[in-house]
């Protein structure tokens, strides 16, 4: 009966492999369509961008601090709405080890500077001129916020507008212990 045992094992393996292939295909197609940012739990892609003062900001330089990474544009009303709240919470959390970084999507310096002046933004605002960071983070709709913990891991991804309460709790989430 050894032969039958072997046959059963072979059949089981073949069917499992095929079932996994089908399962992967269905899963892959289902997740492919969704506009998903980088995965929660994975390493946040490192990048370097220049802010309005010509200063370089490299994500990995903020290791050890939580990072509140916000993608925005002046044409996006919810982005504009959440900016003053972000500004206030930045002031609260910056001394507790949470950095805020706002990435503008390829707008002109004049517009961004004007916006920063109007809202008196105190956190660094960088401009992604070639949209390469936007591509790396797979950002499709604005605003998009990525929470990065002190180890450089993505903790949470938020698409859409946040309230001030949200922002505070999110910053709390990535605060170093």
């Amino acid at each position: 009966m050894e032969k039958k045992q072997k046959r059963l094992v072979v059949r089981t393996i073949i069917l499992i492999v095929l079932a996994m292939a089908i399962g992967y295909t269905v899963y892959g197609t289902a997740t492919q369509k969704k506009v998903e940012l980088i995965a929660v739990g994975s390493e946040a892609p490192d990048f370097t961008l220049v802010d309005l003062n010509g200063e370089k900001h490299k994500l990995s330089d903020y290791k050890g601090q939580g990072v509140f990474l916000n993608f925005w544009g002046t044409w996006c009303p919810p982005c504009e709405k959440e900016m003053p709240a972000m500004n206030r919470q930045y002031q609260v959390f910056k001394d507790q080890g949470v950095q805020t970084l706002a990435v503008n999507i390829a707008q002109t310096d004049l517009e961004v500077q004007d916006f920063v002046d109007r809202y008196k933004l105190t956190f660094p605002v960088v401009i992604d001129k070639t949209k390469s960071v936007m591509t790396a983070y797979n950002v499709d709709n604005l605003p998009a916020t990525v929470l990065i913990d002190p180890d450089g891991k993505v903790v949470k991804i938020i698409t859409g507008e946040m309230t001030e309460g949200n922002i505070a709790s999110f910053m709390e989430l990535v605060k170093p212990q």
Partner: protein
Amino acid sequence: MENIICACGHSNPYGTKLCEKCGRPLTEEEKQNKVADMRYDGSAIRSKTYNKTIIDKIWNFFSSVKVGIALIIITLVTASVGTILPQEIYVNAPETGKAAYYEQVYGWFGKLYNALGLSNLYSTWWFQILVGMLAVSIIVASLDRGIPLHKSLKNQRIKRHASFMKRQRIVAEGRVADAEETLNKVEEKMKALHYNVRRDGNALLAERGRFARYGPYINHVGLIIFLAGVMLRLLPGFYVDETLWIREGETRAIPGMEGYFIKNNDFILEVHDNKPQGEQVKQGVNVVAKNFQTDVTLYKQPDGALPGDLDNLEKIKDYSIRVNHPLKENGFALYQMNYRLNELKEMRFELVDKATETPLGEVAIDLTNPKKEYDLGNGSSVKILVYTPDFDGFENGEPRTKTSVPNNPAFLFKMTTPSTPEGEVSFVEIMKPPLEPLGENQYRMKFAGAETRDTANFTIRKDRTIPILFVGGMIFMLGVVIGSYWNHRRLWLQVGPNGQVLMAAFVNKNMFSMKKDLDAVTTFAHLPAYIDQLEQAEDNEKEGDHTL
């Protein structure tokens, strides 16, 4: 499930129809048949052997040819339903308006079609599971039949029992004078006809084109490779299909192509300058395009550089992307797909005295990088307080922009001249009289011209699966050709001690070719005339019985 012991003493697996060794019929049904069922050469289909665990039950389900055919029909029908209306990805409507599009254009049927998910049929989970089940069916059914068939063909005996030979379609019985001479002559003739001849005492087996029996299995292997190739597209790195809009003068990261940047140097649209004629006039076409071309420069970041780091970009090449002439690099191809002409790039204004139209100088504002302040030299200057590329009205007194694209640029200017050192504020929008929010001005910004630029649209594509699809397709075709144009012919001959001859022949298709060979060998070796048992039974029997 017991093995079946044949009269010759050989032990056959359960489900065997003809003894593997001597060819005697083993089942009652088979004994009733006048002509043996030679499908899979009488070997046991593996699924029929036993039916115990759940795994075996699943296996047997997929092993069934009936199930396989049902799956093929269901797949064909559903796949064709997906072609009734265009699929969602081919519909020219914004992502959010697609549902409405189906209803608008195709009425209630379109609405239903979209609601049932048929507008996205090929990526639905159930369609993919259906195709997956078909693949399982192909694999399982082929293993179940192909392996026993292969074993049975490989271990063929030369000597078969008379009951096996007499139940072949072609049979001949009679007597010859000299047994040895007959065997020798048959061997000689069959060898001349390119048969493989083997002898065992007074028995002879001549065989030709055995590989034709493997055609369907080769075909299935090709099909499975093809399906696997399509599946591989989902794995990262195998398949990229992205689009990019890029304006003249811009440098952009190429989506899907990590570390690469592209600069649009110039977009060129050329048209034929002929007088409209013939079909052109009939269809009301004024101009006919001759060339769509984008001159680009491809850059690459140094290895290990981070996204956003534009220092030390390495120039790879300059290229003119034209229709059907994609830019190829590292397995990727960039195709010229679309374009938009004449987007504002630069706007020029003249600072003039409203009353006298006396100009005080001109400013040229680069909309991709407007400056905060423009000095006109003669003590006059213009400051941009606010710039909105796509002005969309005011909100709380602030001008708002709808997009980041300069479709409708508007400026809040502060004009300072020697006679108005305090400065005057003016809001300027294209084609509209300037607004003067802080009171009547002495000066105004007069529109003096504009520069435009074009936008090119590329598709970025990489498909590593094409060689796999190609190989799969070729193997598939090879299987079809082998199975269709070759046939497996066999001739068994036994001569008894008294010169009694028993001959039988088999062919899996194309009986005509077999009969031609038989006629030749019969004449050559003076064999008794053969009879076709099927033709006897049924006069109108069709040619060939498509035995796998």
